[in-house]
């Protein structure tokens, strides 16, 4: 009897440990050590408080264990009036020499992380700054931090560099969009996580063939993962405005991908930042733009939209509205299911606000 019980316990232990092993461990492969960022690039959170941070100048993608993996004990929503001035004072520099590369909200704690560049020339530096829910700023120390890194292949060479415009995490892969300062390439890289030395990711060339008869290379600027039915999709906004959809399963290295344009968002405009969210049973994109304000795009019908192939007068495809009173939004990220943290430019000053999702 005792022996049978022992056998049951052992079996249960085995099953439990097998189940644990079957789940991908987000901390796998992370090693403690010092990290020095040379530039402030895009950020995104993976599972369990792992922050992905791109360092475009060093052509490196880092996975950093922030240790920030518990629910917040505060229900406050981050708000920092005069964020750029405060960052300048924290970093000991003039406000005009502070640039915010990106922001990401940790979905577990609701704390906001910023990549910040300080200064130019020989004294230029980059830091990660944490904004807690009360709006206090502190540096995320990168000394002896559990981390992993991967070099982005062929990104930088001599005077060539690549501005990484956006990163996102989906199904154990990090998607990286970049724009070169030399050739006009359309690079979307996919890098498996945990990082693998043998597979540093591959570059996929995206073409834009939806306008008239001409087909061109088109750099993707910002994007967000979105499931259409059962199909994983990437919704992406090109540097020159159109919003497109790309099936994730088609994103294979060496393939020439043509995206389907689902919306034209107006001229003299650059997309800056986007999220997908759900409200009252419907899906929307919230897209910040350089010239056309903050847009709420209704994704209804995205699965059946044939793609815009004719020249359009001004706007076409999915319907959108511009959110009044939200001018100057530069960056945004989801804060829970009902809010977004936004970085708003008023005059020369950047402010951090939390808004209700429209």
């Amino acid at each position: 009897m005792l022996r049978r019980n022992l056998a049951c316990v052992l079996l249960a232990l085995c099953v439990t440990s097998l189940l644990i092993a079957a789940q991908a461990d987000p901390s796998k492969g992370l090693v403690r050590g010092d990290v020095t960022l040379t530039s402030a690039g895009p950020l995104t959170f993976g599972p369990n408080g792992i922050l992905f941070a791109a360092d475009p100048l060093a052509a490196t993608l880092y996975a950093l264990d922030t240790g920030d993996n518990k629910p917040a004990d505060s229900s406050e929503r981050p708000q920092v009036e005069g964020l750029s001035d405060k960052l300048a004072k924290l970093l000991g520099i003039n406000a005009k020499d502070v640039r915010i590369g990106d922001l990401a909200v940790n979905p577990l704690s609701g704390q906001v992380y910023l990549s910040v560049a300080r200064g130019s020339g020989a004294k230029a530096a980059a830091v990660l700054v944490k904004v807690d829910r009360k709006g206090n700023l502190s540096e995320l120390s990168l000394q002896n931090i559990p981390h992993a890194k991967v070099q982005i292949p062929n990104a930088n060479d001599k005077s060539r560099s690549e501005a990484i415009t956006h990163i996102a995490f989906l199904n154990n892969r990090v998607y990286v969009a970049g724009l070169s300062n030399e050739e006009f390439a359309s690079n979307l890289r996919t890098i498996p996580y945990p990082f693998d030395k043998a597979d540093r990711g591959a570059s996929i060339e995206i073409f834009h063939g939806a306008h008239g008869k001409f087909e061109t290379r088109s750099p993707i600027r910002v994007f967000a993962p979105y499931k259409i039915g059962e199909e994983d999709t990437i919704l992406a906004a090109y540097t020159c405005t159109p919003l497109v959809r790309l099936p994730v399963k088609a994103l294979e290295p060496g393939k020439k991908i043509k995206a389907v344009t689902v919306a034209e968002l107006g001229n003299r405009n650059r997309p800056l930042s986007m999220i997908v969210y759900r409200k009252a049973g419907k899906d929307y994109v919230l897209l910040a733009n350089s010239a056309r304000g903050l847009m709420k795009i209704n994704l209804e019908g995205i699965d059946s939209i044939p793609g815009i192939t004719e020249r359009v007068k001004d706007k076409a495809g999915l319907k959108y509205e511009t959110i009044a009173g939200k001018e100057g939004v530069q960056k945004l990220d989801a804060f829970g299911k009902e809010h977004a943290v936004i970085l708003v430019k008023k005059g020369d000053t950047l402010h951090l606000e939390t808004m209700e999702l429209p």
Partner: protein
Amino acid sequence: MWMVIFLAAAPTLSLSPEEIIVRNLPDAAAAARTLRVYVEPYQVGQPAVLGQVRLQGKTLHFAPRFGLTPGLTYRVEAGTFRQSITVPRPQRKPSTRVQIYPSGERLPENLLRFYLYFDAPMRRGEVYKHVRLLDEQGKEIDIPFLELDEELWDPSGRRLTLLIDPGRIKRGLKPREEIGPVLEEGKSYTLEIADSWHDAEDVPLKATVRKRFKVTAALTSPPQMNRWSLSSPSDRLPLVVTFDRPMDYALAQRLLYVTNARGEPIAGTITLSQNETVWSFTPTQPWTYGEYRLVADTRLEDPAGNSLARPFEVDRLRPIEKKIPVEKQSRTFWVTKKDKDQ
């Protein structure tokens, strides 16, 4: 009396290249724990400057995490002590100059990019405020450049890539349909780089630079390597390649090179001249007699973004030869003995 004056010596602030030094604090050890440094003008609630405090004897040293910034005033607080000190700004006369590529005075209507080469690292941020494109009447063209927050700098901060809005180059895209192209054939323009632009040491450029150019027809076909002419180099004389058109200044230095017959790259110096139509390669070691190759990566572009592999825009309704994409193209050349040597 003398003793009393000595004891009352007031705490003072001074500067070393990397630190703020506080002397004569009554209880330096206790002050080390409470010392905070703020950037003036101080406002309640502002964060203290990141940095480390070090106690050496009775003197406190504060090293800001990123060094001291010239021109800033720092306010030091420890207990009841409060004092400010300004880091002097070095006086330097403007000396930084800029050079513009493509260097030609005739540029295609579908020109995709300019490179601005500075001879010192530049200040980043708001670069587009200092660059203007003017028409023949001196009127500013409205938003001609793709204004990227990231600003396409090279790693040294000395070269900026200025992209003409591709939305106004690509046919069939709305920006061009509605507001037209940035450049129009037959017209003249001036690219102006203003001396209001500061370098990384916060000193303005030496002078405003203006590049005047006339716009020619759009370049819509890809460059063809088999139409380039190659010289016959010998000894230390360079290989001189004359292109079928001007090529991209930066890419022609990175994506075009010389190998020996075994495909091993040959070290040497590249120069571009004649408005980027002539490419010269002088080997570090003298040529040896035999076969060499000029190798081009097919990503090599002309200034309108047409690469060896494909034009910037492909007209899908016009049949073009479907080729298997190759990543490299090459031309063979021979280094032979000159007649007088034979």
